[in-house]
């Protein structure tokens, strides 16, 4: 560079340096902003998840209270009325020909009373607390067996462990919803259920031999709200819920839950 260092070269180098610095500044600020944006989105997502969890918890609590109240009403009010009706009926003096009819009505009322008691027990969360989710589930299967609509098969393996009470109710409600769906929609003849305990993991499989459904039909708006509730509840535990189904091939529901603090 034989020319002497002039103002022109100074301007040239200085302007290049300034532009380099400015570009660096812009890019760095863009990265900082990106980082801030990422943090903001993460916080927003966490807040949303927490809010949804709280909302679901409140929803379950309200539902639980409603169930408890209905269960009490069924037991104390409707049950008492049926009992009084039975007592009154038995005290009637009737002729020999009407005795058969009275006896038939009596057995129908007895059956209604049993069903009422079963339903009352099934929906009462206190019962789930008292019996535990597993026995409540078996009782639910028995209730279905009594209807003679399905042949119910039940098996279990492993050593059961204690699950937090609130979570037991959620677990049981998922299983109850599964059984309700089978009774209402499957049109099958058999229900196979299997519970497997392994360390602190419990896997429950419920299978039917019904008509099944297209897997994507539960994703349609307004369709399969029961299944959506099951999924929300599973997410609350958190548990893994898998539903496999094909038209004409029955449905398999698998629920796996891992308890963090295990007491056997």
């Amino acid at each position, binding site marked *: 560079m034989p*020319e002497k260092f002039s103002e022109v070269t100074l301007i040239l180098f200085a302007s*290049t340096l300034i532009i380099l610095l400015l570009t660096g500044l812009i890019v760095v600020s863009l990265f900082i902003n990106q980082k801030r944006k990422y943090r903001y989105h993460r916080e927003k997502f966490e807040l949303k998840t927490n809010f949804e969890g709280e909302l679901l918890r409140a929803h379950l609590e309200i539902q639980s209270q409603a169930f408890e109240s209905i269960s009490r009403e069924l037991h104390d009010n409707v049950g008492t009325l049926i009992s009084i009706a039975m007592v009154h009926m038995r005290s009637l003096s009737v002729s020999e020909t009407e005795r058969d009819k009275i006896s038939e009505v009596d057995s129908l009322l007895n059956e209604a009373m049993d069903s009422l008691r079963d339903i009352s027990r099934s929906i009462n969360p206190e019962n789930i607390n008292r019996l535990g989710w597993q026995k409540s589930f078996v009782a639910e299967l028995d209730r279905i067996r009594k209807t003679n609509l399905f042949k119910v098969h039940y098996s279990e393996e492993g050593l059961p462990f204690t699950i937090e009470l609130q979570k037991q109710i959620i677990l049981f409600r998922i299983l109850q919803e599964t059984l309700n769906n089978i009774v209402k929609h499957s049109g099958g003849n058999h229900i196979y259920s299997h519970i497997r305990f392994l360390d602190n993991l419990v896997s429950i499989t419920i299978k039917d031999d019904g008509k099944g459904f297209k897997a994507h039909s539960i994703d349609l708006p307004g369709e399969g709200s029961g299944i959506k509730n099951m999924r929300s509840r599973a997410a609350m535990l958190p548990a893994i819920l898998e539903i496999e189904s094909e038209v004409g091939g029955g449905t398999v529901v698998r629920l796996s839950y891992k308890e963090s603090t295990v007491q056997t």
Partner: protein
Amino acid sequence: MNTKLLISTLPLLMVGCAAATSLISFRYDYPTALRKLSVFWVFNFCIDLCGHITKYFGLKNHWLYNIYFWLMYLTLAYLYDGQVKNRYVHAGIRLFYIAFPLLILAESILSGINTLQTMMLVTGSVFMIFLAAAYFRQLYLSEDNEPVTQDPWFWFSFGFILYFGCTVPFLGMFNYLWAHYKEFTNFYYSYFCNSFAILLNLLIITGFLCQRNSQKSR
């Protein structure tokens, strides 16, 4: 091959590498804008190759680089029109499309086509910096949570700001410097302008490759 020739050939090699890399946009499912940029970069390489050949034979090639820059500014403005979602920028691009050819025409009449058209270079470069800055502003204000490093246009804009920003003071004064400080002009062009050109092409390569990486990670 002497050092001077090697230094002047390096940017050409980098343009070639960038053009070759950009061709992956046709192999994979890349957006159309990237494919168009790829075509332009291949064309860019061809012109630069012609420039080097004419220079090698001692022919004045400023007319070739005039054409090269006309097309570069017009093509980049067209591509940024699809990237920047701002009506003022769109209006600015439309205005540029009217004013820039008029400027080219005026400068071609006034100083001819064989001299490097510095007015055109300054106007075009400043407008490219404006477009790249507008794209950065868009990224800054965007609600999108995608990392900017996975956005090819971030890398391209970064390259354009660096290249045009750092070469515009020199290219603006090119004719004056060439007339008064020929050796310094040669020195600055060989070491500085070429370095920025290499940097630009590296960022172009990064942009095309980051698009592929983001597609893979999806």
